[in-house]
Each structure stands twice: as structure tokens, then as C-alpha cells.
């Protein structure tokens, strides 16, 4: 049987279980990512990353 499952019920129990774990992980991950993304939002001036020419 597909992946060792004989019934749709067993198949879904397995896949939904994995899905729930992924949901928990992704909620934590997206929180971290959001903080990373918005970390420097309070800075008002854009930072120059290239060396400016000195005259």
C-alpha cells in the first residue's frame, strides 16, 4: 500500500500530524523572521553601504 498505509484514515492521521508540527515550527520561524525583517525599521536615514568618493 502507498507509503505503508492501508486506509485513508491512517494516511491522513500521519500527514496531518506532520502538518501540525510544521505549523508550530513555521509560526515560531515566521515570528523570528518578522523580527529580523523589521529590526532596523526605526532608523530614519538609509545607510550608505558603498564607499563615498572623497574630494
Amino acid at each position: 500500500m502507498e507509503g505503508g498505509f492501508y486506509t485513508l484514515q491512517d494516511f491522513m492521521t500521519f500527514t496531518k500530524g506532520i502538518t501540525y508540527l510544521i505549523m508550530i515550527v513555521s509560526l515560531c520561524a515566521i515570528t523570528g523572521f518578522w523580527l529580523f525583517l523589521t529590526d532596523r525599521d526605526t532608523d530614519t536615514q538609509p545607510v550608505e553601504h558603498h564607499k563615498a568618493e572623497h574630494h
Partner: protein
Amino acid sequence: MSLTRRRFLGWIGAAGASTVLGRSANASSTVHFKGYADSFAILHDITLCVGCRACEAACNKVNELPPPELPFKDLTVLNQKRRTTAKAFTVVNRFENEKNSKQPVFVKKQCNHCLEPACASACFVKAFKKTPEGAVSYDQSVCVGCRYCMVACPFEIPAYEYDNVFSPRVMKCTMCHPRILKGQLPGCVEACPKEAISFGKRKDILNIARERIMKHPERYLDHIYGETEMGGTSWLYISGTPFKQTGMREDLGITPAPELTSGALGAVPIVVGLWPVLLTGIYAISQRKEKVSAEEQALAVAEAVEKTEATAKQKLAGELEKARKDAQKDKDSAIKQAVKKALDEAASVKQEASDV
């Protein structure tokens, strides 16, 4: 159990292999789960049942259920339509036979041990399990008593011990799973004097049923109830009377219960994945709007202030100029007057001098 490197690599390998070899499947794909090939089933030939209730008595005995109010030999209970209860895993009901009013039809009712049980799909503690032998088993050690299984069952089978305070259980036919594992027959099958119920492998039972129907088309309707209903059940029925008239619903469809909710379940992780993104986006847009409108407002205020200042300056300058001009005018006229006065005085003095 400690995790050795070898075991870990073994798991990774197995996961990889199964990903490559196994096919992905979800409820909407073409993969069809055929169930356990060797699972058992029971054929109930309704045309053979005489309503003796021997099966009910045997079930009561095998499962050590409490004695009933009226003894099993009492057939007056058949005057009412009964359903399974917390004390009766199976009941026999009597129905009108449209072909022969003198010979009523009797039907045994119990858990149908569906191939894809609705109760198992509904249970949030996985208390129900479709065993390889075909029985749908119930684990009372984890049951919380939410009774969602009773809502889910399309055949209205599970009953509940509402009068039990500390250990109420869901009660339903077990297909005598412990007996089957020992190689014995379910209690009801063994007790039936008319062989109205036969036990065997599901594939064999289906063949027997088809054969009977083919051999006696005048006796049976051409339909095996339970072959496809709700995705298929382990109790299969053949009858001469339309099933609708024997208390069995013909409008249940063939969709297995887990498929009924798989769509909604599938949407859940998508919400978890996308909502935070959407909401953050809306938040960012509303923040930006606010920022822009605040900037515009500040700009407008600054312009207004500037304009007011400029107007005020202009006005002030104008008034200053006017005041200066007026002052000059006054000065000029004052000088003129003084000069005139001096001239007049000089003229009068001259006049006085010439008179003497």
C-alpha cells in the same frame, strides 16, 4: 533508547527511499486506499433472518453486558423500532414485507465496521482504530467523552453511558475482535440458527453475496449494501426488500467520512502559512499610509506657517512705510507752518518798525 549514528542514517535513508518509491497521495488525488486485503467481514442475508434474537442474546453474553429489561425470548419488543444502546450492541428490528405481508422482514443492526470509519476520523484522541482484522476498535482508556463520534456516525450506532459518572464509555459492537484474534467466530455469527449471518474474508464474502444475487434474482435486489456506502463497510447486506424499507439509509453516498473533512483540514495550514504574511502586509501599508499622511500634514502646516509669516511680514512692511510717509508729511507740514509763522512774525515786526 539512544540514537546511534547508524540508526539515524538508517532513518534518513528510509525517509529518502520512501519519498522516492512511495507516491504522494491526498484525498483529492487518484490514489485509492483499498484497506487491508485480508480483513474480515460479515454477510447478513436479510431474507434468511427470522427475528429470533439469538444473536442479541449471544452478544449480551459474550460482552458481559447487563441483563435486559425484557428477556431475549420476548419477541414483543419487535413491535417497536429499536436502536443500539449502551446495553445493547446489536438489535433486530421487524419491517413490513411489501411482497408478502404475512412474512415480515427482520434486520440485524450493529456497528458496520466501516473501511474508513467516521468515528475514527472524528475522534480527537484517536480512540477508534480500524484493525487489520476489519474490526473498528474503541479504546476507552483515552476517551474524553466528547461524543463527536456519535455525531459523525452516519448509521447512528455508537451509544453512551450517560448514567455513568466517573467512567462513561462509548458502547458499540466490537466485531468480537478478541475472539477473532483467537480464531473464533463473533458471538452473533456463532449463535444464528438460520445462517443469516456468515463470517469470512471481505473479498470472499462479496463473492458469496454476488453469487447468491446472481443465482436467485427473484429473491434478491441487485445491490450489496455496504459494498460502497460511505466508502465501504465490513458488514454487507443482501435483501429482497428495498433497503430504505428496512431502516437502512440509501442516501448516504459513497464518499468516505475522512474525505468529507479533508478539505477544511487542508485549508488550516495554508491559513497559518499565509495569514501572517497578509496581515503584516496590511499593517505595513497602514503604517506607510499613516507616515505619508503625517508627512503631508507636517508639510502643509509648515507651508501654512511660512505663508502666514510672509503675509505678516509684508503687511508689517507696508504699514511701516505708511507710518514713515505719514510722519514725513506731518514733519513737512509742521516745518511749513513754522516757516509761515516765522515769516508772518517777521512781516508784522517790520510793519511796526516802519510806523514809528
